[in-house]
C-alpha cells in the first residue's frame, strides 16, 4: 500500500511537471523560440555542468529552510506565510549576537549565532501561533503582516542603532567579521547552508514520521475536533510547530549572514521566504519532498539567467514557469485517489 501511495504521488508530480513544461513550451514558441532548445538550455543551466549544479544547489539551500516554515505548521493545519519575516529577524539576531561575541572562539560564536537566528525566527512565527491559539487571530494574515514589520524593524536598525557608517553607499549593520564566517563546503562553491537545509528537512521528516509528536500533529492537521476529543494538547502542538517552522526560516537568515553577507542589510529580504511557500506547497508539505522541490526550483532560477542571456527572454519567464508549475501541481493534486491502479487491493 505504501508503494502504491508513493507511486501515485510520483506519477502525479511527474505529470504536473511535464504538463507545465509543455505549457511553457507553448509560451516560448509564441515568442518565436524553439521549445526544445529552451528545454535543453534550462537543463544545461540547472544541472548540465558542475558549475550549474553548484549554482542550483546554492539557490536551493535557503529555500529548503524557508519551505519548512510553511510546511511544518501546515501539518498542524496552519497556513503560515511568514518565512520572509522570520528569515529577516533571524538574520538580525545573528548579527547582534555575532557582534557582541567579537573575539570569542569561532566555533562557539558560530553555534551561538545559529541558535540566535533560529530563536529569533522561532519566536517571531511562534508569536503568530500563540495569537492564533489564544486570541483566534488568523495566522495567515498575522504572519503576512509580521513580514512587513520584520523588514521595517531591520531597516530601522540598519539605518540607525546598529548602522555601520563605514559602509557609505548602502545602509548596513556592523559586520560580524571574517573570523565568524563559515564560507563554502570544502571542494565546492556551495555554502554550508545546503548542509543545514538538508539536515533540517531530514530531521523534520524523522520528527513527523517517527515520533508521537509528529503523529499528534498530523491528527490535529487532519481533524482538529478529533484531536481535541482525543485530548491532544492543541495549544502546545500549534505553538511548537510554529516555533520550529519559524526557527527553520530564522536559521536560513543566520546562514545568509554567516555564509554570504557578513552583515545585515536590505539584501536579507529578497523573497526566499515567499519562494519557500511555493516549495512547501509543491512538496505537499512533505519534508523529504521539500529537498527535491527546492532543488528543482533552485534549478529553474539558476537557469533563468541563461534563458535571459541566450534567448533574450525577460526575467519574468522563470516566474511564468514557476507559476505554471504551481498551478499544474495544484490541479494534479485533485487527481489523487482517482486512479484505481494505485488503490490498495484489500479494499
Amino acid at each position, binding site marked *: 500500500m505504501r508503494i502504491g501511495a508513493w507511486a501515485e504521488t510520483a506519477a502525479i508530480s511527474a505529470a504536473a511537471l511535464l504538463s507545465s513544461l509543455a505549457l511553457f513550451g507553448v509560451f516560448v514558441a509564441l515568442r518565436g523560440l524553439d521549445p526544445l532548445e529552451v528545454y535543453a538550455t534550462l537543463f544545461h543551466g540547472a544541472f548540465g*555542468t558542475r*558549475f550549474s549544479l553548484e*549554482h542550483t544547489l546554492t539557490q536551493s539551500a535557503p529555500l529548503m529552510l524557508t519551505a519548512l516554515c510553511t510546511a511544518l505548521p501546515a501539518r498542524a493545519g496552519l497556513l503560515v506565510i511568514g518565512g520572509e519575516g522570520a528569515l529577516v529577524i533571524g538574520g538580525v539576531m545573528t548579527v547582534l549576537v555575532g557582534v557582541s561575541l567579537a573575539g570569542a572562539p569561532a566555533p562557539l560564536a558560530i553555534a551561538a549565532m545559529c541558535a540566535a537566528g533560529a530563536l529569533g525566527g522561532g519566536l517571531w512565527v511562534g508569536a503568530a501561533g500563540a495569537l492564533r491559539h489564544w486570541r483566534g487571530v488568523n495566522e495567515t494574515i498575522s504572519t503576512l503582516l509580521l513580514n512587513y514589520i520584520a523588514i521595517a524593524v531591520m531597516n530601522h536598525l540598519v539605518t540607525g542603532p546598529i548602522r555601520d557608517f563605514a559602509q*557609505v553607499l548602502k545602509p548596513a549593520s556592523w559586520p560580524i567579521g571574517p573570523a565568524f564566517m563559515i564560507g563554502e563546503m570544502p571542494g565546492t562553491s556551495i555554502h554550508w547552508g545546503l548542509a543545514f537545509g538538508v539536515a533540517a528537512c531530514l530531521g523534520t521528516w524523522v520528527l513527523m514520521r517517527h515520533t508521537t509528536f509528529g503523529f499528534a500533529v498530523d491528527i490535529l492537521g487532519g481533524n482538529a475536533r478529533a484531536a481535541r476529543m482525543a485530548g491532544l494538547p492543541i495549544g502546545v502542538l500549534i505553538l511548537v510547530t510554529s516555533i520550529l517552522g519559524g526557527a527553520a526560516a530564522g536559521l536560513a537568515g543566520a546562514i545568509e549572514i554567516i555564509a*554570504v553577507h557578513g552583515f545585515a542589510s536590505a539584501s536579507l529580504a529578497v523573497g526566499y521566504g515567499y519562494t519557500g511557500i511555493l516549495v512547501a506547497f509543491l512538496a505537499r508539505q512533505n519534508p523529504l519532498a521539500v529537498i527535491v522541490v527546492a532543488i528543482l526550483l533552485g534549478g529553474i532560477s*539558476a537557469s533563468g539567467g541563461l534563458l535571459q*542571456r541566450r534567448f533574450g527572454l525577460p*526575467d519574468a519567464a522563470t516566474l511564468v514557469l514557476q507559476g505554471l508549475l504551481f498551478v499544474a501541481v495544484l490541479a494534479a493534486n485533485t487527481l489523487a485517489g482517482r486512479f484505481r491502479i494505485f488503490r490498495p487491493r484489500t479494499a
Partner: protein
Amino acid sequence: MPDTVLTRRQMLEGSAAALAAAGLEGIWPRLAQAAAKPVTVGFIYVGPRNDYGWNQSHAVAAKKVAKLEGVKLIEQENVPETVEAEKVMESMIRQDGAGVVFATSFGYWPSVLKLAPKHPGVLFTHIGALWKDGDPKNTIGYRGYMEEPHYLCGVAAGHLSKSRKLGFIGSKPLYFIFNNANGFILGARSVNPAITCQVVITGDWNNPVREAEVTNSLIDQGVDVIVANVDSAKVVIENAERRGIMSCGYHTDVSELAPKGFLTGAEWNWAAGAQFVKAWQTGGAYPNLLRGGFRQDMVAISPFGKAVPPEVRTKVQALRQAFVDDSLKLYKGPLKDNEGNVILKDGQVIANDDNKFKLAVNFLVEGAIGKTGLKK
C-alpha cells in the same frame, strides 16, 4: 555654444555625436581607432532594464557598448545583491565566456572582490567608485558627479519657477544625495536667491507609495518644480505632470513621462565605461578608480522639455560648458548650511573633483528646508 548641440536626436544617438559636434575631445573618437579583439561583455542589473531610472541608465550604456567593434553583449536583470550576484557573474564568465562584466549595483561589490582573483583574465567594473589600494587590479570603480547636472536642472528650475518653491525628494541620507540636493539648490539660487527648496528623504531607494505622498504634499505646499533622487522617479514625475507642475529627471532620459512639464534631467553617462572594454580588447591601460563630471564626460543632461524657452536653454548650455572648461565650481564661499553654520568662507573654493570634500558632505546648503536626518 550653438543651441543645436543638444537636440533630442543627437542626445538619443549618444553623447559621442554631441561631443564631436561641439568639437570637444570625447573618448569615443579615440576608441574607434584601436584594433578590437572580440569580447563578450556582461551587464547585470538589480532591477528591470526599463525602469525609467537607475537600471535603465545602465541599459542605455549597455546598448552603446554593444555597438563597439567586436563586442557581444549579454544582459541579465533582477539579480539580487546576494550570493546570486556572484553566481550570475561567474555563470556569465564560465558559460558565456564573458571577458568584461559590468556590475551595476552597489551591493555587487563584495561579489566582485571575491570573483576577481579567481578570474584574473576578466575585467570587472562597478559603479560605486569603491576601489582602493590593495583591491584586485582587474576591478574598476567609476562614477559620475551628478551634482553638476543637478546644478543645471536647478538653473532651469530657477528661471521657470513662479512660486519660488522647489521640491527635492531623496532616497537615502547619503553624501551623494546631499550633493545632488545642494547642486540643485545652488543652481536655482544662482538665478534667484529668494528661492527655497523643500528636501524630503524617504529612507528607501524604491518606495513609490511614499514618493507619491511626498509629491502630493509638496505640491499642496506650493512647490512648482520637483526632482526625485530615487531608483525610479517615474511615479513622482507622472504625478507632477498630472497636477500641472514642472519636473526634472534623474538617472536617464524620462522626458516622455511629462510632455508638458519636463524641464531637463540629470543623467549618468555610464557609456564612459566603454573605455574599459576597449582597454581589455587592446591590452591597454585603464584606471582602477574613475570619478568625473561634465569635464570627464561622465554625466549629461536630458533633452530640454518644451516648457524651457530658448534663452534659458542657451544659459544652461553655457553653464554646462563652464563645467567642461572647469571655470564653474559647484561649492564656493561664502557658503552656509541651512542651519546657519559657515561651510566655506568668502574666497574659499572647492575643486569639482575634490573627492575628499564631496564624500564628506553631510549638510544641506542655505535655502534648503528640511533636515539631513544625520547625527553630527
